[in-house]
């Protein structure tokens, strides 16, 4: 399987991916039918920043490994799948203690995202690069560190939001 070469062929799907990835920042849709006020739109920014932080951590850990072009966009795109899946899992586990549910959800996200990162690096990276391919363990480590950083950043972002945000 030869890596796709030539910028024009890459640009279109990546632009689409970027648009879809960043649309979370401006998303206002609230499909959940609730009797009270809808979800605070600021949550999109909090989640968006936390994800961006995670992505940067993963990128930093794998910076010396073989990875595709626009790796950050790939990672952001990955969250389009893993974040809704995480929320769905929380929904399934909502009868549990919140701390347990979140811990299990985060644990699974680490495992799944590690696998996806491994797949991205192996399947979409250019074959002619001199960089070594990342091992599965390294991908899981990157995913773990990224998610820990994101999980630590989220409460800090919430605290900042509470301190400086509207009402």
């Amino acid at each position, binding site marked *: *399987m030869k890596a796709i070469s030539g910028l024009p062929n890459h640009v279109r799907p990546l632009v689409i991916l970027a648009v879809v990835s960043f649309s979370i920042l401006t998303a206002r849709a609230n499909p*959940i039918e*609730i*009797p*009270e*006020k*809808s*979800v*605070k739109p*600021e*949550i999109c920014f*909090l989640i968006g920043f936390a994800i961006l932080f995670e992505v940067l951590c993963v990128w930093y850990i794998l910076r010396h490994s073989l990875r595709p072009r626009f790796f950050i966009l790939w990672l952001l795109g990955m969250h389009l799948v893993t974040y809704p899946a995480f*929320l769905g899992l*929380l*929904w399934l*586990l*909502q*009868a*549990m*203690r*919140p*701390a347990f549910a*979140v811990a*299990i959800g985060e644990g*699974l996200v680490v*495992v*799944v995202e590690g*696998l996806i990162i*491994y*797949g991205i690096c*192996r*399947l979409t990276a250019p074959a002619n690069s001199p960089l070594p391919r990342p091992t*599965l363990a390294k991908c899981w480590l990157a995913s773990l560190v990224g998610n820990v950083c994101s999980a630590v950043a989220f*409460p800090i972002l*919430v605290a900042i939001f*509470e301190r400086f945000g509207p009402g």
Partner: protein
Amino acid sequence: MNKWRTFPLPVLILALIGIGLLLLFTNEPRYHRRTLTSWLQQCWDAPSMETQRIAEAQAAVRAIGPKKVLPVLLKLLRFEDDPVSLWVIRTGDKLRFSDVNGGRFIRWHSAEDFWWLGERGFEMLGTNAAPAAEALGKLLDQPGRRMVVGKCLESIGKPAEPVVCQALTNQDEAVRQWAIDELAAVTDDVGLYVTRIEPRLHDSSDAVRAATVDAIGNQIDAPELAVPLLVEALKDSAASPNAAGALANFGTNALVAFPILTNLVEHGGIKLSDAALKTLTVIAPDQALPILLRRSRLPDIAMHRVAFLLLCHYPMTPPVESALQTAAADSDPVIARQARIILTEKHQKEHPLEAQFPDDPSYAGKPLGEWLKMHENNGDYPYSQAASNAIHQIGTNAIPALLRRLIYVEPPFGLPAYEVNRDAMQGFILLGDQATPALPQLKALLDGTNQNLVLLAMVSTLGTGTNAIPVLSKALTNQFAPVRDEAANSLAHSIAERFPERRQEIISLLTNLLSDSDSDVRLSVKGDLQDLNLQPLPSRK
């Protein structure tokens, strides 16, 4: 394609983790593939009228069986909140993403929610949950859980008796207090119950001793056991008001306490003295009357008021009536008002209302007053068809009688007679245009100082249509804000809607009220003007 060959291993690992987690979280007992917790949640969420859903959940819990259910319920009752969970709940709630009520995408459960889910399970199992009673007893000491554990033990009922007995000596006074009440529900024999709780009369906690006295006071079927204990408790300063009050439950069986109670009335503290006096009026009303009469003349307002309020329950004998007559002029407005109400009621019995309106016109053999009582629904408007017809037939002859009724007050103290006044107002409205001759008198009433009467007089004019506009415009400048408000409202709705050609005139009248001193009136008038602007313009002929 080599890249793909390395994939089965990670996928296998993931699958194993998934299966492991699945096994970890499916160890809860199930019925019809649903977990016990989800059945409990169904029962918790279902409103009480959704009996089918509740019965379904109950059947499921019973089908799973107490042996499997009880460990889970106890586990739920043992849950504690951790800081992470509390943070998750708080943040989710703040961002309106989750809550604990089920109104958001995710419904989290605090520890207390889990406790109450567990309690629901105990409620469903009833006495079948008896094997868990001892474990529940140990949970009574856990902070914040007394109420929920108490409910669980209540659901178990009689088999929980030993645990409740043990709780009588619990180190937490709130638990001991709870146990005193709860034991009554699980002990069949009154004597045994009193014997069990009697040691609590010497408890170190004032609240527990008071609760014990109250509990003994409720044993009205065993006066021979309860009364001596209550008399003894009168010596305990913390529980004596409760004991004095509780003796009233035993009626003449508590006569033995009369001398002590009399003494307490004279020398006890305010609370004790009041309780003792109240009990005296129950166990020996005749002997208590002179005490009441004497105390009702005391200068101390608190004593005076209690004595007077107890006196109000006595039959209207001459000494009582005389005391009430004096009280009607009392400086304490509460006492004076109560005395006037009682004396007015007595007056009403002796002087029926209709006898005070002998000159009322009649129709079809019935006086106007009788027709005015013929509402379609009991005491509610509108009038029956027959009454409407009769009042129309009486016509302008009804005006003097209606005016008398509109300003009528209850003799001998001039208390308001709302019902009579309101019937008169409705009579005027029903007369329609025929009430026009009464407008000058009704307009004059607007200068009165009684807000209620001014309002009634103003509303009485509404049946006359546009003839009411001068009265209503006068009411727009009335001293009482509610009158101005109601006048504006009547003009905007009752008049402008029926007579759209007068709308402009009404708009200009209401515009003046936009600078009213009362903010409620300004706001209301603004709304009225908006309503008027929304109404269609009258068609030009």
